[in-house]
Protein backbone atom coordinates (compact mmCIF):
# COMPACT_ATOMS: atom_id res chain seq x y z
CA UNK A 1 0.00 0.00 0.00
CA UNK A 2 1.25 3.50 -0.82
CA UNK A 3 1.85 5.04 2.60
CA UNK A 4 2.40 8.58 1.39
CA UNK A 5 -1.34 9.17 1.42
CA UNK A 6 -1.29 8.51 5.20
CA UNK A 7 1.59 10.91 5.87
CA UNK A 8 -0.40 13.12 8.23
CA UNK A 9 -1.87 10.14 10.06
CA UNK A 10 1.51 8.49 10.52
CA UNK A 11 2.76 11.54 12.44
CA UNK A 12 -0.04 11.06 14.97
CA UNK A 13 1.68 9.60 18.03
CA UNK A 14 -1.01 6.99 18.59
CA UNK A 15 -0.51 5.54 15.09
CA UNK A 16 3.07 6.03 13.86
CA UNK A 17 4.65 4.14 10.96
CA UNK A 18 4.44 0.81 12.75
CA UNK A 19 0.76 1.34 13.47
CA UNK A 20 0.06 2.20 9.86
CA UNK A 21 1.93 -0.91 8.71
CA UNK A 22 -0.07 -3.03 11.13
CA UNK A 23 -3.39 -1.59 9.94
CA UNK A 24 -2.53 -2.41 6.34
CA UNK A 25 -2.26 -6.09 7.31
CA UNK A 26 -5.57 -6.32 9.19
CA UNK A 27 -8.90 -7.69 8.05
CA UNK A 28 -12.15 -6.17 9.36
CA UNK A 29 -15.62 -7.65 8.93
CA UNK A 30 -18.49 -5.18 9.18
CA UNK A 31 -21.87 -6.76 9.80
CA UNK A 32 -24.51 -4.36 8.49
CA UNK A 33 -24.16 -1.69 5.82
CA UNK A 34 -26.62 0.86 7.22
CA UNK A 35 -26.02 4.10 9.09
CA UNK A 36 -23.25 2.72 11.29
CA UNK A 37 -21.79 0.08 8.97
CA UNK A 38 -21.55 2.30 5.89
CA UNK A 39 -20.03 5.22 7.79
CA UNK A 40 -17.59 2.92 9.60
CA UNK A 41 -16.54 1.31 6.31
CA UNK A 42 -16.04 4.74 4.74
CA UNK A 43 -13.80 5.84 7.62
CA UNK A 44 -11.86 2.56 7.77
CA UNK A 45 -10.99 2.42 4.10
CA UNK A 46 -9.60 5.97 4.32
CA UNK A 47 -7.56 5.06 7.42
CA UNK A 48 -5.71 2.37 5.46
CA UNK A 49 -7.04 -0.92 6.75
CA UNK A 50 -5.86 -3.85 4.60
CA UNK A 51 -9.10 -5.67 3.95
CA UNK A 52 -12.79 -5.05 4.59
CA UNK A 53 -15.77 -7.36 4.14
CA UNK A 54 -19.22 -5.78 4.45
CA UNK A 55 -22.15 -8.09 5.04
CA UNK A 56 -25.68 -6.82 4.39
CA UNK A 57 -28.75 -8.26 2.68
CA UNK A 58 -30.70 -5.04 2.28
CA UNK A 59 -31.60 -2.75 -0.61
CA UNK A 60 -31.03 1.00 -0.34
CA UNK A 61 -34.16 3.13 -0.11
CA UNK A 62 -34.77 6.86 0.12
CA UNK A 63 -35.37 6.80 3.88
CA UNK A 64 -31.73 5.68 4.36
CA UNK A 65 -30.15 8.78 2.82
CA UNK A 66 -30.58 11.17 5.75
CA UNK A 67 -28.05 9.25 7.82
CA UNK A 68 -25.88 7.29 5.35
CA UNK A 69 -23.48 9.82 3.87
CA UNK A 70 -21.75 7.59 1.33
CA UNK A 71 -24.89 6.77 -0.70
CA UNK A 72 -26.86 9.09 -3.00
CA UNK A 73 -30.17 9.11 -4.88
CA UNK A 74 -28.70 7.18 -7.82
CA UNK A 75 -28.10 4.24 -5.47
CA UNK A 76 -31.75 3.80 -4.49
CA UNK A 77 -32.93 0.28 -5.29
CA UNK A 78 -29.41 -1.14 -5.41
CA UNK A 79 -27.92 -3.80 -3.14
CA UNK A 80 -26.28 -1.97 -0.24
CA UNK A 81 -23.29 -4.27 0.23
CA UNK A 82 -22.37 -4.18 -3.46
CA UNK A 83 -22.80 -0.46 -4.04
CA UNK A 84 -20.90 0.23 -0.81
CA UNK A 85 -18.01 -2.00 -1.90
CA UNK A 86 -17.83 -0.23 -5.27
CA UNK A 87 -17.72 3.20 -3.63
CA UNK A 88 -15.11 2.14 -1.07
CA UNK A 89 -12.89 0.69 -3.74
CA UNK A 90 -12.86 4.07 -5.50
CA UNK A 91 -11.64 5.75 -2.28
CA UNK A 92 -8.63 3.45 -1.95
CA UNK A 93 -8.03 0.93 -4.73
CA UNK A 94 -5.33 -0.82 -2.67
CA UNK A 95 -7.71 -1.90 0.07
CA UNK A 96 -9.27 -5.31 -0.56
CA UNK A 97 -13.00 -4.69 -0.30
CA UNK A 98 -15.80 -7.25 -0.60
CA UNK A 99 -19.52 -6.65 -0.38
CA UNK A 100 -21.41 -9.77 0.64
CA UNK A 101 -25.16 -9.78 0.01
CA UNK A 102 -26.17 -12.12 2.81
CA UNK A 103 -28.01 -12.17 6.09
CA UNK A 104 -25.74 -13.26 8.93
CA UNK A 105 -26.99 -16.48 10.52
CA UNK A 106 -25.65 -19.12 12.87
CA UNK A 107 -24.89 -21.25 9.81
CA UNK A 108 -22.69 -18.74 8.03
CA UNK A 109 -21.21 -16.50 10.75
CA UNK A 110 -18.11 -18.65 11.24
CA UNK A 111 -17.21 -18.70 7.55
CA UNK A 112 -18.06 -15.01 7.11
CA UNK A 113 -15.76 -13.96 9.95
CA UNK A 114 -13.01 -16.48 9.24
CA UNK A 115 -9.49 -14.97 9.47
CA UNK A 116 -10.81 -11.58 10.57
CA UNK A 117 -8.94 -9.53 13.16
CA UNK A 118 -12.03 -7.72 14.37
CA UNK A 119 -15.80 -7.57 13.80
CA UNK A 120 -17.67 -4.27 13.70
CA UNK A 121 -21.33 -4.13 14.63
CA UNK A 122 -23.65 -2.32 12.26
CA UNK A 123 -26.64 -4.56 12.90
CA UNK A 124 -30.15 -3.45 13.75
CA UNK A 125 -31.19 -6.13 16.22
CA UNK A 126 -30.16 -7.76 19.47
CA UNK A 127 -30.33 -11.32 18.19
CA UNK A 128 -27.50 -10.78 15.69
CA UNK A 129 -25.45 -8.99 18.36
CA UNK A 130 -25.79 -11.96 20.70
CA UNK A 131 -24.74 -14.21 17.81
CA UNK A 132 -21.67 -12.04 17.08
CA UNK A 133 -20.88 -12.03 20.79
CA UNK A 134 -20.95 -15.83 21.04
CA UNK A 135 -18.79 -16.19 17.93
CA UNK A 136 -16.38 -13.61 19.34
CA UNK A 137 -15.94 -15.52 22.59
CA UNK A 138 -15.75 -18.92 20.91
CA UNK A 139 -13.23 -17.89 18.24
CA UNK A 140 -11.48 -15.21 20.32
CA UNK A 141 -12.17 -12.46 17.79
CA UNK A 142 -12.69 -9.00 19.32
CA UNK A 143 -15.68 -6.93 18.22
CA UNK A 144 -17.01 -3.44 18.75
CA UNK A 145 -20.68 -3.07 19.60
CA UNK A 146 -22.38 0.15 18.50
CA UNK A 147 -26.00 1.24 18.47
CA UNK A 148 -28.01 4.42 18.06
CA UNK A 149 -31.42 5.61 19.20
CA UNK A 150 -32.75 9.11 18.64
CA UNK A 151 -29.88 11.38 19.67
CA UNK A 152 -27.98 8.77 21.69
CA UNK A 153 -25.28 6.33 20.69
CA UNK A 154 -23.63 3.55 22.63
CA UNK A 155 -20.30 1.87 21.88
CA UNK A 156 -18.30 -0.84 23.61
CA UNK A 157 -15.18 -2.67 22.49
CA UNK A 158 -15.26 -6.31 23.52
CA UNK A 159 -12.05 -8.27 24.02
CA UNK A 160 -12.86 -11.94 24.59
CA UNK A 161 -12.16 -13.04 28.15
CA UNK A 162 -10.53 -9.69 28.98
CA UNK A 163 -13.33 -7.12 28.93
CA UNK A 164 -17.02 -7.66 29.72
CA UNK A 165 -18.83 -9.22 26.77
CA UNK A 166 -22.14 -8.01 25.34
CA UNK A 167 -24.00 -10.56 27.44
CA UNK A 168 -22.37 -9.11 30.57
CA UNK A 169 -24.28 -5.87 29.98
CA UNK A 170 -27.53 -7.17 28.49
CA UNK A 171 -30.63 -8.87 29.68
CA UNK A 172 -31.65 -11.99 27.83
CA UNK A 173 -34.16 -10.34 25.54
CA UNK A 174 -32.94 -11.80 22.31
CA UNK A 175 -36.14 -11.66 20.29
CA UNK A 176 -37.17 -8.11 20.83
CA UNK A 177 -40.12 -6.77 18.88
CA UNK A 178 -38.96 -4.94 15.79
CA UNK A 179 -40.10 -1.35 15.37
CA UNK A 180 -38.95 1.74 13.51
CA UNK A 181 -36.30 3.39 15.66
CA UNK A 182 -35.82 7.16 15.55
CA UNK A 183 -32.33 8.32 14.49
CA UNK A 184 -31.07 11.89 14.12
CA UNK A 185 -29.34 11.95 10.72
CA UNK A 186 -25.98 13.31 11.88
CA UNK A 187 -25.63 10.85 14.79
CA UNK A 188 -24.43 7.63 13.05
CA UNK A 189 -21.28 9.19 11.55
CA UNK A 190 -20.17 10.37 15.00
CA UNK A 191 -20.90 7.02 16.61
CA UNK A 192 -19.13 5.25 13.72
CA UNK A 193 -16.12 7.47 14.27
CA UNK A 194 -16.00 6.51 17.96
CA UNK A 195 -16.54 2.85 17.04
CA UNK A 196 -13.59 2.99 14.63
CA UNK A 197 -11.39 4.66 17.25
CA UNK A 198 -12.12 1.81 19.64
CA UNK A 199 -11.44 -0.68 16.84
CA UNK A 200 -8.10 0.98 16.09
CA UNK A 201 -7.09 0.58 19.73
CA UNK A 202 -7.86 -3.13 19.63
CA UNK A 203 -6.06 -3.59 16.30
CA UNK A 204 -3.00 -1.75 17.64
CA UNK A 205 -3.04 -3.61 20.96
CA UNK A 206 -4.07 -0.59 23.04
CA UNK A 207 -6.69 -0.42 25.79
CA UNK A 208 -10.25 0.47 24.77
CA UNK A 209 -12.41 2.86 26.80
CA UNK A 210 -15.21 0.71 28.25
CA UNK A 211 -18.87 1.43 27.62
CA UNK A 212 -19.30 4.81 25.96
CA UNK A 213 -22.62 6.65 25.84
CA UNK A 214 -22.84 9.81 23.77
CA UNK A 215 -25.87 12.12 23.61
CA UNK A 216 -25.29 14.39 20.64
CA UNK A 217 -28.20 16.71 21.46
CA UNK A 218 -27.10 17.51 24.98
CA UNK A 219 -23.38 16.95 24.23
CA UNK A 220 -23.06 14.50 27.10
CA UNK A 221 -20.19 12.04 26.78
CA UNK A 222 -19.99 9.28 29.38
CA UNK A 223 -17.65 6.37 29.93
CA UNK A 224 -18.50 3.52 32.27
CA UNK A 225 -15.92 0.99 33.33
CA UNK A 226 -18.00 -2.13 33.69
CA UNK A 227 -16.66 -5.19 35.44
CA UNK A 228 -16.84 -8.62 33.82
CA UNK A 229 -19.64 -10.84 35.05
CA UNK A 230 -17.70 -13.93 36.13
CA UNK A 231 -20.93 -15.93 36.01
CA UNK A 232 -21.75 -14.76 32.49
CA UNK A 233 -23.33 -17.61 30.55
CA UNK A 234 -21.33 -16.62 27.46
CA UNK A 235 -17.85 -15.36 28.39
CA UNK A 236 -17.82 -17.01 31.82
CA UNK A 237 -19.38 -20.44 31.24
CA UNK A 238 -18.91 -20.55 27.46
CA UNK A 239 -22.45 -21.74 26.81
CA UNK A 240 -23.29 -20.77 23.24
CA UNK A 241 -27.05 -20.83 22.84
CA UNK A 242 -27.21 -19.37 19.35
CA UNK A 243 -24.25 -20.86 17.51
Amino acid sequence: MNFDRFRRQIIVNEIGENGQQLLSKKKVVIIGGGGLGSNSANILVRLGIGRIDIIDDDILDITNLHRMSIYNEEDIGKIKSQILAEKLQKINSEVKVRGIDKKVTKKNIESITNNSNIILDGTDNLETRFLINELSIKKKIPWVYAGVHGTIGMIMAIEPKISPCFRCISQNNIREKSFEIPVLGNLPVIISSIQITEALKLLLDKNPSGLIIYDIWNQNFERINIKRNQQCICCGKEVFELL
Partner: protein
Amino acid sequence: MEIKIKLYGRYREIAGKEEFQFKVNGDTIWDVIDKFVKKYSVIEKDKKFIMVLKNNTYASFDEKIEEGDTVTISPPVVSGG
Protein backbone atom coordinates in the same frame (compact mmCIF):
# COMPACT_ATOMS: atom_id res chain seq x y z
CA MET B 1 -34.63 0.22 51.53
CA GLU B 2 -32.79 3.11 49.91
CA ILE B 3 -30.48 2.73 46.92
CA LYS B 4 -28.83 5.09 44.45
CA ILE B 5 -30.12 5.22 40.86
CA LYS B 6 -27.83 6.49 38.10
CA LEU B 7 -29.48 7.32 34.79
CA TYR B 8 -28.11 7.51 31.27
CA GLY B 9 -29.41 8.62 27.91
CA ARG B 10 -32.91 9.98 27.55
CA TYR B 11 -33.89 8.75 31.00
CA ARG B 12 -31.99 11.72 32.40
CA GLU B 13 -34.29 14.09 30.55
CA ILE B 14 -37.36 12.15 31.56
CA ALA B 15 -36.38 12.16 35.23
CA GLY B 16 -34.77 15.60 35.12
CA LYS B 17 -31.67 14.38 36.98
CA GLU B 18 -28.61 12.21 36.56
CA GLU B 19 -28.78 10.36 39.86
CA PHE B 20 -30.94 10.22 42.94
CA GLN B 21 -31.72 8.21 46.04
CA PHE B 22 -34.61 5.82 45.48
CA LYS B 23 -36.75 4.00 48.03
CA VAL B 24 -37.67 0.50 46.94
CA ASN B 25 -40.31 -1.81 48.31
CA GLY B 26 -38.86 -5.14 47.28
CA ASP B 27 -35.50 -6.73 47.01
CA THR B 28 -34.68 -7.48 43.40
CA ILE B 29 -33.52 -5.50 40.36
CA TRP B 30 -36.93 -6.16 38.80
CA ASP B 31 -38.60 -4.45 41.78
CA VAL B 32 -36.40 -1.41 41.12
CA ILE B 33 -37.24 -1.39 37.40
CA ASP B 34 -40.92 -1.89 38.15
CA LYS B 35 -41.05 1.05 40.53
CA PHE B 36 -38.95 3.23 38.23
CA VAL B 37 -41.23 2.52 35.27
CA LYS B 38 -44.32 3.26 37.34
CA LYS B 39 -42.81 6.57 38.47
CA TYR B 40 -41.91 7.56 34.89
CA SER B 41 -44.64 5.89 32.87
CA VAL B 42 -43.15 7.06 29.55
CA ILE B 43 -40.53 4.31 29.96
CA GLU B 44 -43.06 1.46 30.13
CA LYS B 45 -42.36 0.23 26.57
CA ASP B 46 -38.64 -0.17 27.38
CA LYS B 47 -39.27 -2.17 30.52
CA LYS B 48 -38.05 -5.59 29.40
CA PHE B 49 -35.09 -4.17 27.47
CA ILE B 50 -33.66 -1.71 29.98
CA MET B 51 -29.91 -2.01 30.36
CA VAL B 52 -29.19 -2.33 34.02
CA LEU B 53 -26.04 -2.65 36.09
CA LYS B 54 -25.60 -3.12 39.83
CA ASN B 55 -22.47 -1.47 41.19
CA ASN B 56 -21.13 -1.33 37.60
CA THR B 57 -21.53 -5.07 37.07
CA TYR B 58 -24.15 -7.02 35.14
CA ALA B 59 -27.30 -7.68 37.11
CA SER B 60 -30.11 -10.00 36.06
CA PHE B 61 -33.65 -8.88 36.77
CA ASP B 62 -34.01 -11.37 39.62
CA GLU B 63 -30.76 -10.37 41.36
CA LYS B 64 -31.05 -9.22 44.96
CA ILE B 65 -30.30 -5.65 45.89
CA GLU B 66 -29.10 -4.32 49.19
CA GLU B 67 -29.18 -1.01 51.01
CA GLY B 68 -26.65 1.38 49.48
CA ASP B 69 -26.33 -0.37 46.12
CA THR B 70 -25.98 1.75 42.99
CA VAL B 71 -28.25 0.68 40.15
CA THR B 72 -27.43 2.10 36.72
CA ILE B 73 -30.31 2.29 34.27
CA SER B 74 -29.99 3.07 30.57
CA PRO B 75 -32.39 2.84 27.66
CA PRO B 76 -31.81 0.12 25.08
CA VAL B 77 -29.69 1.24 22.13
CA VAL B 78 -30.10 -1.30 19.36
CA SER B 79 -30.42 0.41 15.99
CA GLY B 80 -27.60 0.10 13.50
CA GLY B 81 -28.49 3.50 12.20
